[in-house]
């Protein structure tokens, strides 16, 4: 009884041994003395378990914390197990000063475990220094910086301003993530594609990456554009004696550091549009603009249509602009396609919007298309001005009485200007919920075994086919082949019908033996005498003794056949045995 209890206790110990482990939390930082542009890699390592809640870390409010992921480790070496879970972060300082970071607290199975804390000093400068003899940023100048600027600090509402972001570097980076401001006080359009060039600044060559946007402020007042940020993983070569492994093939033993670069904020004072001189039909457009119009054909027949094309071009925000309602006397106006595109020109974004209208005159004669007037504001001249097309005229010849109406479908009235689909986010595909997840997809053992079996089967089939073809060739070549092959089988079959006491035993035994010899050795055994048979056998591989025995048997059969000798059961059995024995000898001796 005591022993059984002891047994269960041991089993239980094993279970609890699996659960109860020493849990230890360690807080490690890669650096403790940095600048505002630097970042720190932090690891919270929880030893003794693979579970554990996300740590809370005291003092994290002084930093921007970015999660770097978690990893778990499990090892079994010589029966001893160890496990750990590591949480990784990157810290970006918010301000200069000396801060206490930690302790990190983790909850495991309802209990809390804490690490030690560390002191971190954040310097206000832009060069970084490290402790511990690691790679040092060059002290003469920072190798990276970013700028953000605006070409117009005092624009009008809806006047285009160009925002230029530049990243200057003279060292390698392996990764860069840009964080532009959200421009919530503007309508934004991309000005041109990101470009890269080299620039010499005070004798030093820099690689510059430039991104530009066209912005249109949506309201008056002071607007502050937040700083742009750039998180880079910079590569620093270690300063040490060159070794074989400094060869570029081995990537020179460089180290990487995470940096967060920040530009200065940009402040604009957006002016309201003046009230003086504002037309009651003011279009809302602000910029340097031109307008033109064309009707293509100058003469048509009544009932036909012409297309009026109005082109507005300039650096204003044309995307949302629509023409006022057009109405011409004696002309029906139908909306047609509108096109809009933009292109960089002279460092600014220039838009072109083309409006098309179908005009169908309802009377013959000369039809006037009056000028189209669009009031705009020109910020360069600080005044309102009017865009005006030239007046046009159209000669309409009388029709055949039936006004041909060009049917304009509803589809034609739609604005068909397409917009490129902009991808705003990406994510992984969802999990699979089908029941195939319960099936083992590994090849089963029987499948692995069936492969060599099928191969063997095929090989066997090929060997059998080859043997059959060989036999068929032999049969084709040698007419007596089959006879020779079947001679012994036929003899045995016929022998079964030979019984002791058969009155015809001598004749039948003789015929049987002669037939066998004839088939087996290729001559007509029935037509020869016993002596001739012996002579013929002498030309084969049959031994003389065997040939002699055959002659004796045949002669005794002849005697029995023609000599009116009585057949006794004993004698016929002896005869049968002799015939069998001699045939067996022939089978052995014939090659």
């Amino acid at each position, binding site marked *: 009884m005591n022993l059984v209890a002891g047994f269960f206790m041991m089993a239980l*110990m*094993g279970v609890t041994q699996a659960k109860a482990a020493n849990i230890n939390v360690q807080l490690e930082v890669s650096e403790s003395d940095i600048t505002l542009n630097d970042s720190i890699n932090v690891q919270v390592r929880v030893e003794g378990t693979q579970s554990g809640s996300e740590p809370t870390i005291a003092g994290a409010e002084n930093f921007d914390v970015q999660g770097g992921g978690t990893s*778990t480790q499990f090892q079994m070496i010589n029966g001893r*197990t160890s496990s750990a879970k*590591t949480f990784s972060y990157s810290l970006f300082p918010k301000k200069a000063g000396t801060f206490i970071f930690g302790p990190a607290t983790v909850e495991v199975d309802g209990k809390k475990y804490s690490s030690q804390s560390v002191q971190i000093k954040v310097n206000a400068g832009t060069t970084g220094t490290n402790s511990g003899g690691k790679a040092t940023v060059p002290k003469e100048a920072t190798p990276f910086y970013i700028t953000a600027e605006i070409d117009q600090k005092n624009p009008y509402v809806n006047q285009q301003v160009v925002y230029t972001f530049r990243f200057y570097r003279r060292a390698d980076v392996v990764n860069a993530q840009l964080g532009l401001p959200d421009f919530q006080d503007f309508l934004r359009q991309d000005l041109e594609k990101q470009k890269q060039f080299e620039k010499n600044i005070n004798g030093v060559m820099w690689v510059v990456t430039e991104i530009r946007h066209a912005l249109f402020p949506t309201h008056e007042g002071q607007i502050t554009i937040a700083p742009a940020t750039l998180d880079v993983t910079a590569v620093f070569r270690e300063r040490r004696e060159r070794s074989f492994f400094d060869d570029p093939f*081995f*990537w020179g033993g460089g180290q990487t550091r995470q940096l967060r670069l920040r530009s200065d904020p940009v402040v604009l004072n957006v002016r309201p549009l003046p009230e003086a001189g504002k037309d009651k039909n003011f279009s809302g457009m602000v910029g340097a603009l031109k307008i033109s119009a064309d009707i293509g054909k100058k003469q048509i027949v009544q009932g036909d249509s012409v297309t009026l094309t109005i082109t507005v071009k300039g650096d204003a925000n044309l995307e949302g602009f629509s023409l006022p309602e057009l109405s011409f006397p004696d002309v029906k106006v139908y909306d047609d396609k509108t096109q809009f595109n933009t292109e960089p020109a002279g460092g600014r974004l220039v838009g072109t919007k083309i409006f098309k209208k179908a005009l169908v005159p309802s009377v013959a004669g000369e039809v006037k298309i009056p000028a189209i007037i669009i009031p705009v504001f020109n910020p360069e001249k600080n005044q309102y001005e009017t865009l005006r097309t030239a007046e046009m005229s159209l000669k309409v010849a009388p029709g055949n009485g039936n006004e041909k109406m060009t049917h304009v479908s509803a589809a034609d009235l739609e604005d068909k200007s397409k917009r490129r689909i902009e991808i705003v986010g990406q994510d*992984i595909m*969802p999990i699979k919920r089908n029941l195939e997840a319960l099936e083992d997809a590994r090849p089963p053992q029987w499948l692995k075994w069936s492969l060599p079996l099928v191969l063997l089967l095929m090989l066997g089939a090929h060997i059998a086919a080859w043997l059959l073809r060989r036999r068929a060739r032999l049969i084709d070549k040698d007419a007596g082949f089959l006879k020779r092959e079947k001679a012994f089988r036929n003899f045995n079959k016929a022998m079964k019908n030979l019984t002791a006491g058969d009155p015809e035993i001598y004749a039948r035994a003789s015929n049987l033996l002669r037939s066998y010899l004839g088939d087996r050795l290729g001559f007509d055994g029935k037509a020869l005498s016993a002596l001739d048979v012996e002579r013929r056998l002498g030309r084969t591989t049959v031994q003389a003794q065997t040939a002699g025995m055959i002659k004796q048997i045949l002669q005794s059969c002849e005697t029995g056949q023609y000599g009116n000798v009585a057949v006794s059961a004993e004698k016929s059995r002896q005869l049968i045995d002799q015939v069998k024995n001699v045939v067996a000898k022939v089978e052995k001796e014939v090659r």
Partner: protein
Amino acid sequence: MKGRINLFICALGFLISASTSSALEESMNKNDLSSLLHKANEAFQQGSYQEAIDGYQTLLANVENGELHYNIGNAFFRVGELGTAIYHFRKAALFLPRDADIRYNLAYARSKVTDQVEGSANLLYKAWSYLSFMNLREAYFFFIFAIGIAGTAFLLRKREGSLWLRRSCGLLFVLAVLIFIHAHFENAKKFGVVNAVEAKIYSGVGRDNVVLFTLHAGTEFDINDQADGWVQIELSDGKKGWIAAHDVIL
């Protein structure tokens, strides 16, 4: 005699306690698996990714297939373990090579990897990679089928009939051989993925060797050797070195 029995019972108890300490699951029946799959999927949907991971790992100890590797890859991706996610997506792709979701997730996870490693631009290598449209099980069946077809065509080669049909069977057999070899090779290949945020690669076993280069989470490699808790890795551009085993998933 009684003493010997008592000793046996003690030894048995010790063995059971020792074996319970290691993380082993007993074989589960189909109903248990179905219930566990459902729980793991629900945990994932509700955002309890660690619970989902535990469930999928238990299932993988009993059955192995592309769907489970894919789901656990998704769960690891969600908790930020990029390296482990890529590892499982690659395993899923071995079982379901034509699955568009797996290809997409693997490509997306790879796009998050910091390190840029140049792959082989060799034409032969590219052509070889096009053979990966069957998994190992399908390759077995296809190979056996091709052996039967080609073998029969070869047997009947002396008979009157379409020469092109027999030649096609021969080509089919050659294709089946290549696909089978490819599937076998890919399944047997030892690969791993870095799952530490940053890991140093050394010239030899141990941290007192020269640091050759640094890799980050998600970088994939082939395994050349393992010793004393270290792994000798080789990248697709030929770079080699030793990395600590706890920084990778194999």
